[in-house]
Structures are given as structure tokens and as C-alpha cells.
């Protein structure tokens, strides 16, 4: 493979590079043992090294000077230049081959990144590595590396080993040709170069121009289609049969069908057995189905799928796909729709729906997918999203904005007010200065300097007057804005208050009695705990007494015959009591669970009521009243389990 040996083969290459590469290249045994990750890292390092410019202009100048100082002639210099150019050319060719090979063999993730960069570069004429640097926020060195790699992307060629410096172009061409041929032979999911493919939202199918098969097993396959720079993953595409092919096939099927119908008629006339007739009828039906499918390609799946569903249902245990795999099978539109859902809804889909067998999901997606997804409101209602919309009325971000009175000018009510008062301060300051100047003017004593001082005062007054005019204009505009902003916030608050009052009218009548009843329930639950502990103590005591009496009875041999019966009765009583205690405990635990669920369900509404009350400024002075209520209703579960 040229990756390892190319750089070291450059006999005339820069000595620094040669030595570094010689040091970094491991022995063949080591290469066999090293992990792909280590190898990849080493090769990446090598690429960054190779991408360095072989000779800068400064280096060329130095070289010339050095040659001159050594007493070389101009002819010698020309020879050196030629040799250098030859070397650089060879170096460049080998670098290209190496890069292509590198991209070709790099892991999928890396290739996808390079692909992304290449697609971006394709959109920019005369692109440079700086474009990548800006777009993907890369450092210059990495951007340069990706730029070089992106240039070679989608041109995988067989590595060539140039023996003569003049030949590499031919061998490279051969390599490319071979690759093109092999690319034409490639076929993925029925897609090959020249076949027509379609994505769900394309109006017309497009022709495949290249097939990219993953290097590593399990990797994704891509195809490049006409008019699109970026390769597309094959799972997003469907193969479309060319119209001519379909027509030819349909014609053939029709002919076959006619022939079979004739055969069937003849067999019927000849009085063949039922078995033969049935077989022939089956063939005719199959051909009819084929014909229907070709004539109506959109309708084709129904009977087939029904069959498929039946087949699948028989082996549901075997077909267990991951949600991600199943998601891949859903059409792109539906997939996008699903992925845009809120996180909780998506979680619900993933856990409750995507875990179902594939055939159920397929049928679901086909029949009710869109309807169901559109009715997200229903999902919200069922799975605890109630109130998500009205929740925005006390959304914390919004409340923060309200506090500062966010208005359309991109500033806040507070900000506007500050600006206005600052402007007012400026106006009074200017007024003061003007008055001072006026008194100064009056106090000037007669003398030679008087005209000069008067002139100075006049200039200052003019400047201050201009400033004042500006400040007054600003006062006018700020005043208007402030007024509008206040009105806007006022209207908003009034509208919201109306809405919140309406909501409170709905919440209050339910929440108030609920809170009272929850308190009463807590008392009842405590009573139950008390009863459980009281009776279990009493029962323990009585059982101990019984045991004691039994022990006493054992001391009397004449009571032996009675003892057996008494013991039996005693055991049955113990059994009943332990069953009773266990059952009561379990019922108490159920109650705790129900109470805890009830609290969990009620708390958001209590919180909402408190926040709404704060919005309209009714009662509930403290910020924490909602939280207090929450803590007032702790899940009762913990209390009872101790009983």
C-alpha cells in the first residue's frame, strides 16, 4: 500500500521530511499488530506532514544563494531547478494518490465529515481552505487538511506505484479507468450507475451517476445523482423502473396472461380434473396481480403487504428491530415530522410505539400515521401535557421580559425610562450652563479684553444652544416611544389579567375543595396507620398470652389430648390474623400510591393557581406560596409504609 511506503520512496525528497517519515513508519510486523485507530492516527499525522509546502520562495532564494556561494554556475542552478520541479511534480502525484487512498480507507465518520466539507466547497466558486475555516470554525491547519482531503473526495482511484517519473500520469489514468469500470459494476439496493431513483419529495426521479459502497462492513451506502453535489444515503431513496422497461414488462405479462387464460378455457372444455384447473387458475391470478401492479405501481403494496403482515405476525418474536432501524423504514416526510415533535412526545413514540413489532408499526404508519401525528393535541392530553399552552402566561422568561417591559424597539421599558431621565438631566445641565454664561456676560468689566471675552461667551452659547436643541428633539422622540411602550405593556397586562381571571374561575372551584379534601384524606390515612399499629400491638399481646397458656398446658399430661385440638385452632387463628394484617398493609400501600399520584397531579394546578394570583396581584404575597403548598402535600407514601 502506497500510504506507508510512498513518502519513504522519495529518494530526492527534502531531507527533513525523509528523516521524520523514516522515524514514524513502523516495521511491517508492528503494522500488522497495531489497531486500526492507531494506524488511522498515524496516517492522519502523515497527511498533515505531507501537506506542508515542499519549498517556499524564500527557501528557493536561499538555495540559489547557497549554490552561488558554493561556486555553482547558472547552468547548475537551472539543473537544480529542473530537478526540484520534477521532484515536486512526483511528490504532488504521490501525495494525490495517497490522499485519495486515505479518504477511501478512512472510517465512515471521517468520510462523512470530508463529504460535508466537499459539498460545502462545491457551492463556492474558487473556494479556499479559508472558506472551510470560516464555515466550520476550524483552525487554519485543520482547514487546510480538510480542504486537501475534500478535493480528492469522490475520486477514489486504485493506488499506483510510479516506477518512472514520466509514467505516473498514464498509470493514474489507468487506475481511474479501472475504478470507473468498477464503479459502474457496483449495485446497492438495486441502484447502480444509470438507474433512476426518487426521494419522497422529489417531483421527478433522477439518474444515479456514482455508487459509493462502504469500505467497512455495516457502513452506509451512498449514491451521487444528477444535479446534486452531495451524495445521498441509499436508504432515503427508492428505485424507479424506467418507463420503457415497465411498458415492455407489462406487454409481456399481458401476452402470458392471455395465453394462460386460453389454456384454462381449453382445459375446462376438455373436462380436466379440478386440481389441474385450480393450478391453472392460480397461475392466471398471479399474472393478473402482476399486471395490476405494473399498471398501478402506487397501489401495488396492499395485497402484498397484507400477506406480508400475516407472515410477519407469525414470526413477531424473530423480527425485533431497534427504534432507529424502524425509523429508517418510515418515509422521509413522516420521519421529519416525528423528529420535530417535542422531546417528551418523541420519547413516547420511541418507547410506546417504536418498540412494537415492525409490521404493526408499518401498518400504523401507513394507515393512520399522518392523522395521528397531526393530532398531537390528543397525545398531549393523554400523556400529561395539559396546560402547556396556558403555562406560557407565567413562563419565567416572559415574566422577566415583562418586568423590564420588552417593547418593539429592541429595548426595555426600563431602558427607555433610563434614557429619558438621562436626557432630562442633560437638559437641566445645559440650562444651568446657559444661565451661568448669562450672568458671566453681565459681570464682565470694561476693558481691552471685553470684546474677546464676549466673543468666547457667544461661541459657547451657540454650542450649548445647538446641544439643547438636540436634547429637546430627543426628549420628544423618547417621550413618544416611552408613552407607546407603556401603553403596549398596559394593554398586554390588561388582556392577560382578563385571561388569567377567566382561568382562575375554572381552577379555583376545583382546587379549593380538592385541597380541603386532601387534608381530610391525610387525617384519615393517619387514622388507618394508628389502627394498624394499635391492632397489631394488641394482637401480638394476645397471641403471646395464648402461647403462654399453651406452654402451661403442656405441663399437665392429662391435657395432652385437648392440647392437639387447641393447637390446631390456635394455628388457624394465627394464619387468619397474619393474612388480615398482610392484606391491610398492602391496601394501605395502594392508598399511599394513589395519594402520591393525586398530589403529583394536583401540584401543577396549585402552582399555576398561585402564579396566576400573583399575576393579578391577589393574595399570596410570598413568592414561595406555591412551593409551600407543594410541600404541604408530600406523597403520603412514606408515612404508611412504616405502619
Amino acid at each position, binding site marked *: 500500500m502506497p500510504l506507508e511506503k510512498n513518502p519513504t520512496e522519495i529518494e530526492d525528497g527534502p531531507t527533513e521530511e525523509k528523516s521524520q517519515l523514516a522515524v514514524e513508519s513502523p516495521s511491517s510486523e508492528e503494522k500488522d499488530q497495531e489497531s486500526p485507530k492507531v494506524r488511522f492516527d498515524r496516517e492522519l499525522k502523515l497527511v498533515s506532514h505531507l501537506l506542508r509546502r515542499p519549498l517556499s520562495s524564500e527557501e528557493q532564494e536561499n538555495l540559489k544563494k547557497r549554490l552561488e556561494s558554493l561556486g555553482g554556475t547558472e547552468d547548475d542552478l537551472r539543473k537544480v531547478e529542473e530537478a526540484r520541479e520534477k521532484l515536486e511534480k512526483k511528490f504532488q502525484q504521490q501525495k494525490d494518490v495517497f490522499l485519495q487512498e486515505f479518504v477511501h480507507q478512512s472510517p465512515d465518520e471521517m468520510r462523512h465529515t470530508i463529504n460535508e466539507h466537499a459539498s460545502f466547497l462545491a457551492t463556492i466558486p474558487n473556494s479556499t481552505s479559508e472558506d472551510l475555516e470560516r464555515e466550520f470554525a476550524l483552525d487554519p491547519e485543520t482547514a487546510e487538511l480538510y480542504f486537501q482531503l475534500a478535493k480528492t473526495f469522490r475520486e477514489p482511484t486504485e493506488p499506483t506505484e510510479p516506477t518512472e517519473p514520466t509514467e505516473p500520469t498514464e498509470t493514474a489514468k489507468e487506475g481511474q479507468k479501472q475504478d470507473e469500470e468498477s464503479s459502474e459494476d457496483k449495485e446497492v439496493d438495486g441502484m447502480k450507475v444509470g438507474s433512476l431513483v426518487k426521494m419522497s419529495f422529489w417531483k421527478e426521479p433522477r439518474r444515479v451517476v456514482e455508487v459509493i459502497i462502504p469500505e467497512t462492513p455495516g457502513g452506509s451506502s451512498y449514491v451521487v445523482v444528477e444535479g446534486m453535489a452531495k451524495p445521498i444515503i441509499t436508504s432515503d431513496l427508492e428505485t424507479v423502473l424506467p418507463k420503457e422497461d415497465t411498458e415492455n414488462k407489462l406487454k409481456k405479462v399481458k401476452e402470458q396472461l392471455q395465453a394462460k387464460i386460453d389454456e384454462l378455457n381449453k382445459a375446462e372444455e376438455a373436462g380436466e380434473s379440478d386440481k389441474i384447473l385450480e393450478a391453472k387458475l392460480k397461475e392466471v391470478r398471479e399474472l393478473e396481480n402482476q399486471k395490476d401492479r405494473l399498471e398501478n405501481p402506487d397501489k401495488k403494496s396492499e395485497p402484498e403487504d397484507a400477506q406480508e403482515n400475516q407472515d410477519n405476525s407469525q414470526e413477531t418474536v424473530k423480527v425485533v428491530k431497534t427504534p432507529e432501524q424502524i425509523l429508517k423504514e418510515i418515509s422521509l416526510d413522516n420521519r421529519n415530522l416525528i423528529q420535530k415533535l417535542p422531546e417528551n412526545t418523541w420519547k413516547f413514540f420511541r418507547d410506546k410505539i417504536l418498540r412494537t413489532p415492525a409490521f404493526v408499526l408499518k401498518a400504523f404508519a401507513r394507515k393512520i400515521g399522518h392523522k395521528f401525528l397531526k393530532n398531537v393535541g390528543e397525545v398531549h392530553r393523554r400523556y400529561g401535557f395539559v396546560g402547556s399552552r396556558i403555562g406560557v402566561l407565567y413562563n419565567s422568561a416572559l415574566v422577566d421580559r415583562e418586568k423590564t417591559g420588552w417593547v418593539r424597539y429592541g429595548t426595555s421599558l426600563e431602558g427607555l425610562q433610563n434614557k429619558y431621565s438621562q436626557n432630562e438631566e442633560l437638559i437641566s445641565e445645559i440650562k444651568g450652563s446657559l444661565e451661568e454664561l448669562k450672568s458671566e456676560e453681565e459681570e464682565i468689566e470694561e476693558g481691552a479684553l471685553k470684546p474677546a471675552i464676549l466673543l468666547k461667551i457667544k461661541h459657547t452659547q451657540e454650542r450649548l444652544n445647538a446641544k439643547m436643541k438636540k436634547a429637546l428633539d430627543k426628549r420628544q422622540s423618547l417621550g413618544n416611544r416611552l408613552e407607546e411602550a407603556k401603553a403596549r405593556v398596559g394593554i398586554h397586562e390588561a388582556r392577560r389579567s382578563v385571561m388569567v381571571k377567566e382561568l382562575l374561575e375554572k381552577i379555583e372551584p*376545583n382546587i379549593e375543595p380538592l385541597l380541603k379534601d*386532601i387534608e381530610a384524606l391525610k387525617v384519615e390515612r393517619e387514622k388507618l396507620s394508628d389502627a394498624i399499629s394499635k*391492632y397489631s400491638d394488641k394482637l401480638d399481646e394476645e397471641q403471646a398470652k395464648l402461647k403462654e397458656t399453651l406452654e402451661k398446658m403442656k405441663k399437665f399430661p392429662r391435657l395432652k389430648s385437648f392440647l392437639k385440638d387447641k393447637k390446631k385452632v390456635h394455628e388457624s387463628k394465627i394464619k387468619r390474623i397474619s393474612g388480615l394484617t398482610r392484606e391491610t398493609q398492602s391496601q394501605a400501600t395502594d392508598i399511599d400510591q394513589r395519594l402520591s399520584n393525586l398530589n403529583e397531579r394536583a401540584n401543577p394546578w396549585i402552582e399555576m393557581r398561585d402564579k396566576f394570583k400573583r399575576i393579578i396581584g391577589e393574595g399570596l404575597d410570598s413568592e414561595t406560596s406555591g412551593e409551600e403548598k407543594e410541600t404541604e402535600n408530600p406523597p403520603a407514601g412514606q408515612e404508611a409504609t412504616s405502619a
Partner: protein
Amino acid sequence: MNKDELTEEEKALLEEFDSLLADLDKTANDFEKEAGDLISKINNSIDVQESRLDKLENDLISFEEENKDKIDSLAIKSLIGK
């Protein structure tokens, strides 16, 4: 052996045992009744609270649906002037 042949002490022991058993039975019955009453009372009350919450949620869902646009506009649009 016949009960009549027992001594007074033995008879007393047997009687004590029987009376203790009767006490135990009574206590168990009392417990069953008291706990059962409390449990059913609590469960009934929880049912009532749940239906109350159902009503509240349904009321709010219909309110949300009826006033969808109003609520949305109140959320932000009226403040930023859109």
C-alpha cells in the same frame, strides 16, 4: 379424656385458653371492620378527587382549545408589537 375428669386447675387453664382465643377473634374482627371502613372511605374520597381533577383538566383543555390564538398572542406577540 372427659372434661369432667379434669382437675379444677386444668379446667381453669382450658377455659383461659378458650377465652383468650375468643378475645383474639374479637380483636381480629374489630381490626378488619375498622381498617376496612377506613380504607373504603379513603378510596372513595380519592375517587372523588380524581374525578375533580379530570373535570379541571378537561375544562382547561377546552379553554386552551377555544382560546388558542388569544393565549398565543398574549405569550409574546403583543409585547414585541408583531
